[in-house]
C-alpha cells in the first residue's frame, strides 16, 4: 500500500497545483480586467459621458443553419457605428462594438451577457436571436445594471411578462414581436371570404405555439366562419418536411400559415412546391418570409412563378418599405458596405445603435436609470419608419406591412408587393395584457 499511496499523493499534489495555477491565473486575469474596465468609475475626462469609448456589446447566432441572422445583426450595427464614429461619435465619445455568438443556447447568451457587461466592460447591450435566450438574458439585466435592446427575439412574453408583469425596466425591444406574424396575418386574410379552412405548419417551440395561437384567436374574432383544420409541429433542425406537409394537406386546407424560418423556411417552401401544394391551396402565409435569406433562397422559384402569387409573407422590416429617404439611404449604404440587401435583423440592429445615440444625447449620461428614463416614450425616425417605445412594456411600436412575394425588375431578389398596411394599434396587443392561452 505504501508505494501506491506515494504515487497517488504525487498525482494529487501535482494536479492540485496545476489546478490552482489554472484557476488563479485565469481568475486574476478576469479580475484585473474587470477592475480596470469597470465602467462604474469614469476616467477624469471632459467628455460629457466621461468615457473616450462607449462600449456596445451585441450577440446573435453566427453559427449553424440560422447564422445569417447573427451576421445581419452584426452588419447592421457595424454600419451604424461606422456612420456615427465618422461624424465624431456620440457627445464626443466613439463607439466600439464586440459581437458574440449566442449559439441559440440561453445558457450561452447569459454567459456572453455577463462577460460583455462585467469583464469586457460594455456600457450597452443588444441583440439575441432566440426567444429562449431573450427570456434568459432579461432577468439578469438588473443584476448587471445594464439596458439591453432586443432586436430579434420575438416572444410576446419578453415585454408582457418580464417588463409589464415583473417590471424589469432594463429590457427594451425594437423589433415587432409575434403580432407581426399572427395578428397582421389575421387582419390581411379576414378580407378573403373564400379562405375558410386554415392549416398550420409551425416550429415545435414557443415561437410557433404563440404565433399559431394568436393567429387563431385574432382571425376568429373577425371571421367566426373559418376553421383551423390541421396542424403539424416541426422540431428544430427539421430537414424533411414531407411528412408535415402531407399531414396538413390531408385535411384539404384553403391556406397554410407557417413559421419555420431561415434555412428551414426555405426547405419547407421548396418541399411544399415539390409536393404540389400550391396547385391546391389559395394562399400560404410565410411568417418572416420577407427575410432576405429566405427571399434569396427561393429567388429562382419566385422568378419562375412557381408559387402562383399565392405566397404571402411579412417581416419585421422589408427593404422595399417604407418609401422614405431614411430607408432609401439605409438600403443604399448597407448594399454599398456589404454588397447584400439588409435583412430585418440588420435594420433592427442599425436602428438600435441610433436609438442608443438618441437616448444618450437625451440623458447625457451612461447611468442605466437615466437611459431607461430617456428611452421610455422615445419617438425616433428609423428606416422602418417612426418607432415609439411604449412606456408600459418597452415595446417599440411601428408599422410593417405584409404582402405577396413577387419579383420586381428593380430588385435582384424578390420583394413584397401588393402591400397590406395597417396602423400598429390595429395589430399590436395593448396593455393591460392577460397571458394568452396556448393549447398545444
Amino acid at each position, binding site marked *: 500500500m505504501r508505494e501506491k499511496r506515494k504515487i497517488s499523493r504525487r498525482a494529487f499534489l501535482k494536479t492540485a497545483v496545476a489546478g490552482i495555477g489554472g*484557476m488563479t491565473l485565469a481568475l486574476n486575469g478576469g479580475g484585473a480586467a474587470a477592475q480596470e474596465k469597470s465602467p462604474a468609475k469614469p476616467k477624469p475626462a471632459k467628455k460629457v459621458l466621461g468615457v473616450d469609448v462607449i462600449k456596445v456589446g451585441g450577440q446573435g447566432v453566427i453559427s449553424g443553419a440560422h447564422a445569417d441572422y447573427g451576421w445581419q445583426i452584426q452588419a447592421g450595427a457595424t454600419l451604424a457605428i461606422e456612420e456615427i464614429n465618422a461624424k465624431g461619435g456620440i457627445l464626443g465619445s466613439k463607439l466600439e462594438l464586440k459581437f458574440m455568438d449566442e449559439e441559440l443556447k440561453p445558457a450561452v447568451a447569459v454567459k456572453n451577457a455577463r462577460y460583455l457587461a462585467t469583464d469586457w466592460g460594455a456600457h450597452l447591450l443588444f441583440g439575441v436571436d432566440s426567444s429562449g435566450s431573450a427570456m434568459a438574458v432579461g432577468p439578469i439585466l438588473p443584476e448587471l445594471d445594464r439596458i439591453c435592446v432586443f432586436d430579434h427575439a420575438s416572444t410576446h412574453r419578453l415585454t408582457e411578462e418580464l417588463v409589464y408583469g415583473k417590471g424589469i425596466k432594463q429590457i427594451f425591444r425594437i423589433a415587432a414581436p409575434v403580432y407581426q406574424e399572427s395578428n397582421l396575418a389575421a387582419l390581411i386574410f379576414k378580407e378573403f371570404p373564400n379562405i375558410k379552412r386554415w392549416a398550420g405548419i409551425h416550429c415545435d417551440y414557443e415561437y410557433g405555439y404563440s404565433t399559431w395561437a394568436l393567429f387563431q384567436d385574432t382571425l376568429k374574432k373577425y371571421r367566426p366562419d373559418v376553421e383551423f383544420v390541421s396542424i403539424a409541429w416541426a422540431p428544430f433542425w427539421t430537414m424533411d418536411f414531407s411528412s408535415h406537409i402531407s399531414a396538413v394537406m390531408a385535411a384539404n386546407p384553403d391556406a397554410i400559415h407557417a413559421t419555420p424560418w431561415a434555412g428551414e423556411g426555405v426547405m419547407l417552401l421548396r418541399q411544399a412546391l415539390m409536393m404540389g401544394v400550391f396547385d391546391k391551396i389559395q394562399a400560404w402565409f410565410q411568417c418572416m418570409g420577407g427575410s432576405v435569406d429566405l427571399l434569396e433562397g427561393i429567388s429562382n422559384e419566385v422568378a419562375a412563378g412557381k408559387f402562383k402569387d399565392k405566397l404571402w409573407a411579412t417581416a419585421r422590416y422589408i427593404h422595399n418599405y417604407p418609401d422614405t429617404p431614411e430607408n432609401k439611404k439605409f438600403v443604399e449604404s448597407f448594399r454599398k458596405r456589404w454588397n447584400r440587401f439588409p435583412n430585418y435583423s440588420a435594420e433592427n440592429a442599425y436602428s438600435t445603435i441610433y436609438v442608443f445615440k438618441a437616448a444618450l444625447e437625451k440623458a447625457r449620461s451612461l447611468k442605466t436609470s437615466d437611459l431607461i428614463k430617456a428611452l421610455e416614450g422615445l419617438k425616433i425616425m428609423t428606416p422602418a419608419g417612426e418607432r415609439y417605445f411604449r412606456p408600459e412594456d418597452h415595446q417599440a411600436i411601428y408599422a410593417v406591412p405584409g404582402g405577396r412575394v413577387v419579383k420586381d425588375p428593380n430588385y435582384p431578389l424578390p420583394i413584397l408587393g401588393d402591400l397590406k398596411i395597417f396602423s400598429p394599434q390595429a395589430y399590436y396587443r395593448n396593455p393591460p395584457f392577460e397571458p394568452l392561452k396556448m393549447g398545444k
Partner: protein
Amino acid sequence: MKTRLAVLILLFLLALLPFYAGKYALYVAIHILLLSIFSLGFNLLFGYTGLLSFGQAGFYAVGAYGCGKILLAYPSLLAGIVGGVLLAGAVSLLLGILCIRHTRIYFSMLTLSFGMMIFSLAWKWRDMTGGDDGLVGIPRAPLEVPGLFKINMAAMENYYYVVLGFAVLAIYLFHRIIHSPMGLAMQGIRDSETRTACIGISVQKYRLVAFTIAGLYAGLAGALLPPLESTVTPPLAHWSHSAEPVLATLLGGIYAFSGPIVGSVLFYLLKDIIVRFTEYWLICLGIIVVILVMGFRGGVVGIFVREGSRR
C-alpha cells in the same frame, strides 16, 4: 502530508477568491465548480466502473428543473437544492435499473436515449417546464434554516460560497468513496466484469450504485445552476451537454481522482478564452480530443503522473 498542504493552499485561494477576483471571474469559478461536480460523478461511471454514459445531462436537467420549480414555489435555497438533488437521484435510480443490464455501446446508446427523452419532456411538457423558454425568473432565494439562520444571497459572492461549500463536500465524499471497499469493487468491475462476478461481487448491484451516485452528482451540479442563472432551459438536457463532462474528464484524465476537476478547469477556461479570439473554438477542442484519445488517454493528469497513464 504534502497533499494536504496543496489542498489547503487550494482551498485558501478559493475561499479568498471574491476578494481578488472580478465579478465575471467569480461567475466563471462557479461554473467551473459545477462542471467539476458534474464530471466527477460522470467519472465514477466511466473511469471507475467502465461505463460511458451519454445521458448525464438528463439528470443534470432534472436537478435544475427540480430546484427551479421548488424555488419558484417556495423561496428557500436549501429546499431547492436538496429537493433537486433528491429528485435527480430518484430518477437516476429508476433509469439505472433499466440501464445497468447493458454495457459498452448499448449502455452508451441507452443512456443517450433516456437523456434525450428527458430533453424532449422538458421541451414538450410546457405546463411544467415552460417549453423552450424554460423556467424564468427563478429567485436566488436566501439560505435559511427556519429558526436558526438566514443569509441573503443577492450578492454573487455569497452564492459563490454556497457553491464552494457544496463542491468541497461533494469532492470530499467522492474521494472517500473511490478509496473505500465499494470504490475498489467498482474498479474491479471496470477492470474485469467476469473476474469481479467470480469473486462473489454482484456486478449489477454496484453498477446501479455507481449510476445513482453519478446521477446525484449531476443533479447537484444542476440544482446549483438555477439560483445563479435564474433560468432553466431544455438545452441543459441535450446530449451535446452530456458531452461536456465527457470531454472535461477525458481532458483531465479518467484514471486519476483529480482528473475530472483539472479537466473541468482546463475545459471551461479553454473554451472561455478561445471563444474570445475565434468563433472556431470547436475545431480546437476536437483536435485536442483526437490527440488525447490517440496518445494521452491518461489525460493531462496522466501526463504529469505515471499512475494516470497506466492502461
